[in-house]
Structure formats: C-alpha cells, structure tokens
C-alpha cells in the first residue's frame, strides 16, 4: 500500500490544490498546524478553526475540522461565542496580520484582556495579499505597498508586545523557516489554558517580496534563516521588526492567569453560593 502524506487526513483534499501562490508560506503553516494538533491530546472532533478574510482566512476552508470562514476582522468574536457556548471545544483562530490587527485589532486586545481560552495563530506576511498588497499594521517603515507606493511611513505594531501587554498567557514568534519550533509552539499554545498567541512570519513573494525586491518565496525563506535569532524569553519590547532587519524568534511569554470562565465561575460561586452550578456551556 502506498503511504499517505501525514497531513491529508486533516485536509479537505477535494479542495486541493489550494489557491495560494507558489512560494507562499501558508501551506507550510498548514503542515505545521496539522502536525501540532495531531500530537495534541485533544480529540479531533472538539477542535474548531475560525478564520477571517484574506489569504490566511482561507486556512479554515482547507482544514478538515469544524471550520468557519467568517467576516473580515471578526474571527475572534465569533470564536468567543463558539467557545463560551461550548467550553469543551478547543477553538483556534487562524488569520492574517491585516485581518487580526487592523480591522480586528480591537477584538484581539479584548479577548487577550479577558483571557478567553483560545489560540490565535497570526500569519504575518506584512501585507494584504489577497487584495493586491496594501499596507497593513505590521508593514515595516519604508516597505512599499500598493497603498504606500513611496514607502510606508507608519510605525508598525510589535505584535508580541501588544499581545503581552493586553494579557496573553502565551506568546511566541517563529518564521516559516522554523518549522520544528513552530510545531512545538502551536502545540504548546493549543494546550495552554487561556489566550495564547503565535505569530508566524511568512513569505508573500507575489505581493510583498516582489514589490520590495526581496526575491521569491525561497529567497525570503533564506532571509528568514539568515536574519533570525532565537531568544526564548526575550523582552517583547525589544522584538519589534524593521524592514530587512533581524527577526527575533522564540517563546517570549508563558505565564498563568485565570481564564475568562475560571474567573466567571469563581465570582458567581462566591456571590451566588452553593446554588450556583458552575457554567460548563449552554447545552
């Protein structure tokens, strides 16, 4: 019997080949994602993936799990409803930098603040790929985008620092070059109780690389390899990214805070007494 690619059972093969460009890192992310959740101690039926809009937003559609391709910027509040209605579910949001941090930025900080139990995987390619390469909140200063034809002048977000400041209990950053570390990080993030965040720097050769003379996907991957340093536990204030500069990778934050539901049940029990049945979902 011909052996099978270990990820295909987790893919909607009737939708493959996918729409992503040659040299795009999203497929690599999918590989790492599937390998991570396959080794997690979580029943597959209980895993839900929620995406927003954009190239990364299509991830939900390729994964053979309960999967939701929602509206632009709103996967986190959708995931919040999903998780709170049935806390047994393991809810993972996969979306891009524009979706999660521009239009969806407010939802990100509030979910982190509440410490809602969910994992956010942000594929950061510094651009809106699907719509033609516009500037995003992570595009480095100087970088060219279709809406910053003379170079970006806005300070980008340092996502790791933002996540830490807002309250995330797990924060890590890797590039698509760091596949083994990435698998481990996704696994840790998914198994972590609370709001966990994994940023993945990924090549968009078609709309970011080419416009900024960074070469094709492979050349961008080589750059990730050369310019990245691993500094676990690094101070997130110091891991901001600039154009063509170094990329600090690693697990930056791994801490404990009560989750939204833990706090909720604790408070209700304290206030309402023994008559209160701890909330375990509406079903």
């Amino acid at each position: 019997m011909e052996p099978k690619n270990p990820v295909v059972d987790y893919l909607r093969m009737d939708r493959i080949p996918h729409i992503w460009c040659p040299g795009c890192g999203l497929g690599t992310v999918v590989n790492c994602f599937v390998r991570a959740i396959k080794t997690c101690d979580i029943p597959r039926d209980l895993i839900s993936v929620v995406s927003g809009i954009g190239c990364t937003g299509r991830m939900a559609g390729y994964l053979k799990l309960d999967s939701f391709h929602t509206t632009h910027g709103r996967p986190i509040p959708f995931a919040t409803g999903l998780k709170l209605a049935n806390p047994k579910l393991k809810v993972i949001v996969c979306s891009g930098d524009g979706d999660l941090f521009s239009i969806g930025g407010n939802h990100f900080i509030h979910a982190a603040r509440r410490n809602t139990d969910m994992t956010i995987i942000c594929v950061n390619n510094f651009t809106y790929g699907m719509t033609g390469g516009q500037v995003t909140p992570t595009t480095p200063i100087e970088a060219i985008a279709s809406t910053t034809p003379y170079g970006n002048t806005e300070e980008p977000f340092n996502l790791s620092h933002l996540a830490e400041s807002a309250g995330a209990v797990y924060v890590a950053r890797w590039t698509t070059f760091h596949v083994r570390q990435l698998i481990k990080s996704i696994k840790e993030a998914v198994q972590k109780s609370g709001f966990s965040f994994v940023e993945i720097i990924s090549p968009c050769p078609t709309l970011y690389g080419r416009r900024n003379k960074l070469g094709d996907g492979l050349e961008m991957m080589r750059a990730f390899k050369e310019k990245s340093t691993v500094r676990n536990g690094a101070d997130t204030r110091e891991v901001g990214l600039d154009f063509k500069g170094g990329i600090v990778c690693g697990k930056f934050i791994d801490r404990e805070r009560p989750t939204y539901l833990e706090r909720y049940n604790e408070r209700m029990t304290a206030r309402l007494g023994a008559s209160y049945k701890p909330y375990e979902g509406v079903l």
Partner: protein
Amino acid sequence: MKADPKGVMTGAHFLDGDHACCEGALAAGCRFVAGYPITPSTEVVERIAARFPAVGGMFIQMEDEIASSIAIQGAVWAGAKAMTVTSGPGFSLMMEHIGLAAMLETPCVFVNVQRGGPSTGLPTLPGQADMMQARWGSHGDYEVIAFCPNSPQECFDLTIEAFNMAEIYRVPVMLMLDECVGHMTEKVVIPEADAIEIAERRFTGAKPGEYLPYETNGNWVPPMVKAGDGHYFHMTGLTHDERGYPVMNAEAQEKCVHRIVNKIRENADAIVRLREAEIEDADVVVVSYGITSRVALKAISMAQAEGIKVGHMRLVTAWPFPENRIRRLADQGKAFVMPELNYGQMYLELERVVQGRTRSLLVPHGGGTVHDPEVIYRKIKEAVQ
C-alpha cells in the same frame, strides 16, 4: 416542544418592554446573549446579566456591537440559541453580520429598540426609522423576518415567536421595539412553561462524512449541525455550494440567493402576523405597527365617533410585508392611512403594493414622541373625502 420551566417566570408581572423581552428570550430557550450597552436597549441586557447565571446561560458584554453580532453566531454554531440587543447606532454597526447570518443561515435574533436618528439622534426617545434598515441594511440580496411589538406583553410573546421563526426558517429575525414600548411598564402575564410552544433546532440525522450543510433535498431549509459532533463541516460567508465550500460563479450565486430569498417569500403567508379590526366594512384602513398602532386606535375611535367607516390593520410582522392582504384590500377600493415615526418607510411598501389604485396617505413624524392622535384623525378624514 415545550419551554424549559427553568427559564419561565410564570405569573403576572409589572414589567417594561425591555425586561419583558429578556423574559421572552429566557422562555424561548435563549441561553447565550452578547451585547454592548446602548440606550434605550440596555435594560434588556442588564436583566439578562442578572438572570442568566441561575439558568445556566451565558451573557457577555462584548467590546462593541460588531463583536456582539458575530459572537452570537459562534454560539449558535456551538448549538446555542442566541441573541443580541441594541439600538440605532449599534444596529448600524451590526449590519454586516445580519448579512452573515442570512448567508450562513444562522438562526438568531437581533433586538433593536429604536430611538430617534439619524446618528446619535435621540437616545432616550422613540423612533421607528430603522424599519428599512432592518430589511435592507446589509449588502446583497436576502430576506429577514421582523416583529414589531406594541406592548410589554408582546415584547414577551413576540421574542419567543422570533426565536421560533429563526429556527424554523434558519434566518436572522429582527425584533423591532421602539423606545416607548421598550421603556413602558405594564402588566405582563407569563404562562406556565408547558403552555409555551418552542421550535426546536432541526439537526441532521446524517452520519459524519455524509452530511452536506446546504443539501436541501427539495426543502427550503436544510437541517443543521453543531461544532464538536464530528462532522468537520465548513461554513463560509462566501457564496457556497451544498458542501458549504466557496464557489465563485454565477450559477452557485443564483442557487444561494434564490433560496435565502425565496424560503421567506414563498412562506410569507405562513410568517405574516396581522391584527385587524373592523376592516370588512371600512372605507379607510389605518395601517400601523409598534407604539404607533396604539395611538392610531385612539384616532380611529375619534373618526368612528363621527360615523367614518375606518378599520385597523396592525403589522405584528413588518417583514415580510403583507403584500397579498394589502393588495386585496386595495382591490376592494379601500383607502389607506399610515402613520409611522419616520418620514415614510413601511409606507413605501404600502404604496408599492397599492400602486395608486386607491388613496394611500402617509402621516409622517420625525420621532421623539408619538403622534398626536388628532393628526392621524385628520388624515383619516382626508382619506374619505
């Protein structure tokens, strides 16, 4: 299916419309509410926040209305009955997700306690100027169902009805209160739980691997699943095929739109709720809804005292609009008078259906209070001249 007694506060109460709406949701089996406070709807979520922990429900105050309007859809796909509650400006923010609910066919309830607008307008005073927005506010073609209670009692009754319709047709249902009804306090009688009919969610009997989310088998409304049951189903706001997969072509679009529009249009007669009085002999029919319907009755009695033959039609459901009924009455030569707290919204529907065959008069009002019955009465007289 009967209501779960846990959520039913049986008895006679003195409640405002907002609180009655909360009790209706509880009785209907709603156990997930996401909302963002906004006058004059805030009392609904305040009561829910207080009542939910005891019945195993979850209320979360989200960061804004956009988040609220999609959090409820996440909850529905986890198996809950869910609603969100807002008012004018918040309703504007929710529009995109009304479209998402229409497209995914997520059964859910949007409560809008209407205030004066546009923009911040009159937060504490009534309006009825979101009626067209409720129907057409999101982009694209779709249909919704909208209820217009005219008393706290109906806020209770019609919230249950809204949840039932949402389940039966897998459609977002709008509950269009107005500030006056929302903040008005009256007697509300809540029956025993087993006297309350609840529409259960229709789940598929298909095994994992066999279920196709939008396979209709000739019916208008396909059965549902929920996350966690092993179906590995996919939902997308993109135009999709039976599998729920995105398909970008005109043929798929036609199939999608045809069904989400016509499942409501073709069932309009079963959905439409009207309350009529003294219509048969009438020369004039006053058509109204919400708080305006009560004021209209006062004007009608003034006209009747003068011997004018005037009847009343109340739109308990504003959407779908009761086209067939209005058309028949127009064919009989009856004139129409329509007061509403806006400058002509449902009136456009009335005109569209009447098509100039009989007289139809608008009694516009900018909102902030209700009509002076005298003004409606004068319009009734004008209609019979």
